[in-house]
C-alpha cells in the first residue's frame, strides 16, 4: 500500500513523525480516514480518537482533545491542542478529572463555567473510553 508522511504536533512537542498508510481522524463533520493521495483538506477535529496506521503495519492509537488537520501535497499535519498515546493515558487522573467535572456540573453555584466543565468532562470520558478499548483489545 502507498505510504505518505504524517506528523502529529502538540504545543508540548512532536508526538509522531513518520511514514503511514492511513490516519483515522475525528473530524467535526464525522470520523474519516486519510489515505495516500487524499485531496488537500483542512478540517477541525473533535475530542476523540486518532488511529495512525504505520507503514510497518503497527497501529498507534492516540486520544485527542480537539485541534485541526491539514493535508497538503500528500503530507498530513495534525495540530492537536492536546494528545497522548493511548498507553500513556493516566486513567486515574482522567477519572479524578471526570469526578471533578461532574461535581462542578451538579452544583448550583452561579460562578461555575458550565461550558468549561462540560468540555473537561467529555475530555476525561474520551481518555477513559479509549484507554479501556485498548485494554480489551490486547487481552
Amino acid at each position: 500500500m502507498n505510504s505518505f508522511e504524517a506528523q502529529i504536533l502538540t504545543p508540548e512537542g512532536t508526538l509522531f513523525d513518520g511514514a503511514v498508510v492511513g490516519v483515522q481522524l475525528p473530524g467535526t463533520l464525522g470520523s474519516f480516514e486519510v489515505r495516500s493521495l487524499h485531496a488537500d483538506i483542512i478540517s477541525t477535529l473533535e475530542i476523540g480518537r486518532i488511529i495512525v496506521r504505520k507503514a510497518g503495519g503497527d497501529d498507534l492509537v492516540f486520544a485527542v482533545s480537539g485541534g485541526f488537520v491539514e493535508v497538503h501535497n500528500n503530507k498530513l499535519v495534525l495540530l492537536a491542542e492536546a494528545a497522548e498515546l493511548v498507553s500513556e493515558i493516566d486513567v486515574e487522573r482522567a477519572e479524578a478529572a471526570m469526578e471533578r467535572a461532574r461535581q462542578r456540573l451538579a452544583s448550583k453555584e452561579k460562578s461555575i463555567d458550565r461550558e468549561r466543565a462540560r468540555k473537561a468532562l467529555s475530555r476525561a470520558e474520551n481518555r477513559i473510553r479509549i484507554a479501556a478499548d485498548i485494554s480489551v483489545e490486547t487481552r
Partner: protein
Amino acid sequence: MANLRDIRNRIGSVNNMQQITKAMQMVAAAKLRKAQNRIIKTRPYAAKMQEVVGRLVKNSDGGNVLLRKPDRTGKVLFIIIGSDRGLCGGFNNNLFKVVETRINEDFSEHNREGNLSLICIGKKASNYFEKRRYKIRESFPGFFDDLSFTKTSGIMKAAVSGFKAGEFDEVYLAYNEFKSAIAQNRIVESVLPIDPDTLAGSNEEESEEHLDYIYEPNPDAILDELLPQHLNMQLWKAVLESNAAEQGARMTAMDSATENAKELERDLRLEYNQARQSAITTEISEIVSGAQALEGL
C-alpha cells in the same frame, strides 16, 4: 591584630558568596537547557499554526471579529511577562522600561484616563507596576513554578472575550525573547486585533493554489476555531521564550557576580598579606630593639 581577623572574616564571607553565586549559575544553566528544549519543541507547532492561519485569513473576507480594526482606540490592554525571581540582572527592569516608554509615547492619555490596564505574569512584573500605580486587571505571581499551556490559554481566553465584549480595543504583549544565553530581545507586539500582514507567508504566488482546499466544515468556522488557538499559541510561545531568556539572564548575571567576588577576594588577600607582613615587621623591630636595650646594660 584585630584588623587581621576582620580581613580573614571578610575573605571567608566573600568565599561563601562566591560558592552561592556559582551554584546559582549552574542551576540556571541546567534550567536554561530545559527551557531551551521546550521552546525548540514548540516551534514547529507554532510555525505550522501561523502558516495555516495566514493562508486562511488571506482567503477569508476579513469578517471575523478578531480581525476587525476598531474605529478608535478607546481602551488598551498590555500583557507583560516578567519573572518570579530576581537576581537575573536587568532582565525585568529593562523590559519594564521599554513598556513604560511605549506607554508614555502612545498611550499616555489612555493611562491618565484609566483606559489602560495591565495583566502581569510573574511576581516581579506585578510588584513593579503596582508600585507605580498602574491599573492592574489581573496578576499571576508564581506563574513559572508550574508552566502549562492550559494556564496561558486561560489568560488569553479572558483577553479574547474582553476584546469581543469591547472591554478593550487593542491588546499588546510584552516579553523578553530568547536570543542567546547572554542576550535578550525586548519585544512589545500587538496581539489583537490580529493583523493579517504579520501572519501572511512570504510567497505571494502560493496563495492562488491554496484556494482549492476542502474546508470542513467551512472556512469561517475553521477560522473561528483557529484564531483563538493561534493566540493561545502566541502567548504560550512568549512565555516559553521569556522563561528561557530569564534563565540565560540569570546565568550571565551570576557568572559576573562570581567574577566580581573572585576579584574582591584577590584584593582582600593582598590587603591581608600586607597587614600580616607589617605586623611581623613591627614584631621583629620590637624584639631587636628589646635585645639592643639588654646589651647596653
